[in-house]
């Protein structure tokens, strides 16, 4: 049943992807709902697969309301401030944050006022599950300048850090019990972020889940660096807070379910253990930074001899014993080597190998470092890339090509000089040949069966004469 509460947007959808990103995936959000009991309001766009039975949904676009309308479900359509300001709900979910709750018909409300409206519909002793965007998140740090979108009729501010939210929420009677760093593909609690062992796995998982698109730089290295330096919480694209009378929730959530500790090690929701260690690509790049090519050689050889040989290096975790754990389905070893070559060039390490160090050449050389024979011409073409790459990698590539062109020109000049001197030498030798052929011994040399010896004598005689 759809109820138009006022301020609704007639030609609008927050769920279609045309106005902002898709909401938090149900696979990530569902494990948080264990504590969401009683009368529940889902405010703002949420993954339709997430909706618990009997929940009340508030969306601002009529198209979304129609899409979510179902038997036994109440869909409120309109702007948040039109909602009856009475504490009617035991649980409020606003996992998408507060940015898509009001409509152009509403007065400009700041972030705190919007939060106040939301808290106003929550019963005392209730539960709040709140998404908070991070204006200093990795995604924003790497974003290219963008045209203002249709959603930007107002740009409300927000809290700078989730810690800012703890006092007002506690004062309102909803103390924060859990805080997740919210990345595409994972919600990460503090215990997991603090464990250095899982950083390789997390780096690989978060990088793989990053949506494609043009950026200032490849997000993988920034994610890996943020994890290593303990900044992954602060630099997350957003946060999810659980507040009020709610169980603290799992330590982390991945698309496979809630992450839990099992016998001292972390396990995924499907029971598979999370391998501890850094990714192979991270280790190789670090060894390149140290200029330690023997270490690179060892890493590559162990990888290519393991069952994970065809898994891209950024999806392989190397544990303390040196074993390689593939986190993705394997492709061919050559294509995995090629992806690594691309990462090395993008990372600015092409100079460690003799030029030309393009992807095919470097792939063949990396294969050589593992003791394998590979012709650069046999390296398959790269997988098609997104139309626009990242600017840092484009600059690196341009600089490399510029350097290779300058080198090629210098070599060309050297070859020209070499050819000129060889030509001169050839001319001299030919003249000497002609001279020898004209001499009596020279003529003899061409007719005598034992020509070689005679020719040698002739040379000696001519040399003696010319030295004369």
């Amino acid at each position: 049943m759809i109820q138009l509460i006022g301020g609704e947007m007639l030609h609008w959808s927050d769920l279609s992807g045309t106005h902002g990103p898709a909401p938090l995936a149900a696979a990530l959000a569902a494990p948080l709902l264990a504590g969401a009991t009683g009368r529940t309001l889902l405010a703002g766009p949420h993954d339709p697969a997430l909706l618990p039975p009997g929940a009340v949904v508030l969306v601002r676009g009529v198209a979304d309301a129609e899409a979510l309308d179902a038997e036994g479900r109440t869909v409120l359509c309109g702007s948040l401030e039109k909602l009856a300001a009475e504490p009617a709900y035991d649980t409020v979910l606003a996992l998408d944050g507060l940015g898509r709750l009001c409509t152009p018909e509403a007065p400009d409300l700041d972030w705190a006022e919007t939060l106040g409206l939301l808290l106003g519909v929550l019963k005392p002793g209730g539960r709040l599950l709140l998404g908070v965007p991070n204006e200093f998140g990795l995604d924003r740090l790497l974003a290219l300048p963008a045209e203002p979108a249709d959603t930007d009729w107002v740009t409300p501010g927000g809290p700078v850090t989730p810690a800012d939210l703890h006092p007002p929420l506690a004062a309102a009677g909803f103390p924060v019990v859990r805080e997740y760093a919210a990345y595409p593909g994972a919600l990460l609690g503090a215990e997991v972020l603090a464990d250095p062992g899982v950083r390789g796995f997390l780096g690989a998982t978060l990088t793989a889940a990053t949506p494609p698109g043009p950026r200032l730089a490849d997000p993988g290295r920034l994610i890996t660096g943020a994890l290593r330096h303990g900044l992954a919480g602060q630099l997350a694209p957003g946060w999810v807070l659980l507040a009020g009378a709610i169980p603290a929730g799992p330590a982390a959530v991945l698309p496979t379910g809630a992450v839990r500790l099992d016998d001292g090690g972390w396990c995924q929701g499907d029971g598979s253990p999370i391998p501890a260690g850094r990714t192979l690509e991270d280790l190789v790049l670090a060894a390149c930074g140290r200029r330690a090519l023997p270490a690179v050689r060892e890493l590559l050889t162990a990888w290519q001899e393991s069952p994970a040989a065809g898994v891209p290096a950024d999806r392989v975790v190397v544990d303390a014993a040196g074993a390689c754990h593939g986190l993705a389905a394997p492709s061919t070893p050559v294509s995995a080597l090629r992806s690594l070559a691309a990462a090395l060039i993008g990372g600015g390490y092409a100079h460690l190998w003799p030029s030309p160090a393009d992807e095919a050449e470097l792939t063949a050389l990396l294969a050589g470092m593992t003791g394998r024979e590979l012709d650069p011409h046999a390296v398959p073409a790269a997988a098609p890339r997104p139309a626009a790459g990242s600017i840092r990698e484009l600059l690196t590539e341009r600089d490399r090509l510029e350097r290779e062109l300058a080198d090629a020109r210098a070599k060309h000049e050297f070859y020209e000089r070499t050819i000129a001197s060889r030509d001169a030498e050839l001319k001299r030798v030919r003249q000497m040949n002609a001279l020898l052929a004209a001499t009596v011994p020279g003529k003899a040399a061409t007719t005598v069966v034992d020509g070689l010896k005679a020719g040698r004598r002739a040379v000696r005689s001519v040399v003696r004469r010319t030295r004369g």
Partner: protein
Amino acid sequence: MHHANHYYGHSHVLARYCGLDDADPPRLHGYLQHGWNIGDGLAPDHEFVPGVPSFLWSERTRRRAWSLGRRQLYVTGAPFAYLLAMEPIDPAAPREGTIWYPFHGWEGQHVEGDHAALMAEIRATEPGPVTVCLYWQEYRTLRRRYERAGFRVICHGYRGGWWKDLDPGFLYRQLGELRRHARVASNRLCSAVFYGALAGCEPAVYGDPMHLRNETSAFGGQQRILREWAGLHGARVDPALARSIAVDELGADRLLSPPELRRLLGWPMPRSVADAELTGVLTR
């Protein structure tokens, strides 16, 4: 790429290691370090063409060359270490006496010093028979003097240059002599001493180091060598220490596999892996 790549049969040894024809090694796409030195690995008058890589013996040389502004540096290890890998030493084989390398000049250079005093010092120091190895220039002028003094005198051959007088057997002869002797010595720390230490000889560096006419002390010269490699100087040095330094300086612990070396040097695959193009990757 450079005629010095073929000095002492170095490229010939690498060609054999790579499974290629070692009688006529292919063009080597880069500059191959041809002797131990305390500079950037290449000769002081070496003319660098931008973008042409240098193949160096040791990480220490690579780091030094980098600091001197060189780029495209790749540590391959010394060709002698590759030869030793192909012709391993039998530890049970008998060894006797000392092979002694008096400091020599190269083509166009002249060494000045007192050979009589050096001969006397060698006699006083070395317990067993001594073989004196002279460079071909000195072999012509000094051979008789050393022989009269009772030494066995040999010459490993020509270094070669500008693709003439190339001597692919040079390193083989040197290794053959080194493995017969218990000690290797010289009056200057040089490639031969490191080769000897790697080939199982007990090394020593003593005696008047002599000097080249108009010798310039690039990179600190003889004084710096004495300071930095003090442990290798003297009539008796710690053989274990000497060996570990030789392994470092010759890069003997980081020799490359033939496939990697072939790719680096721009060399073709040998015929034995002609089907590599069909399969993409071949495990060696």
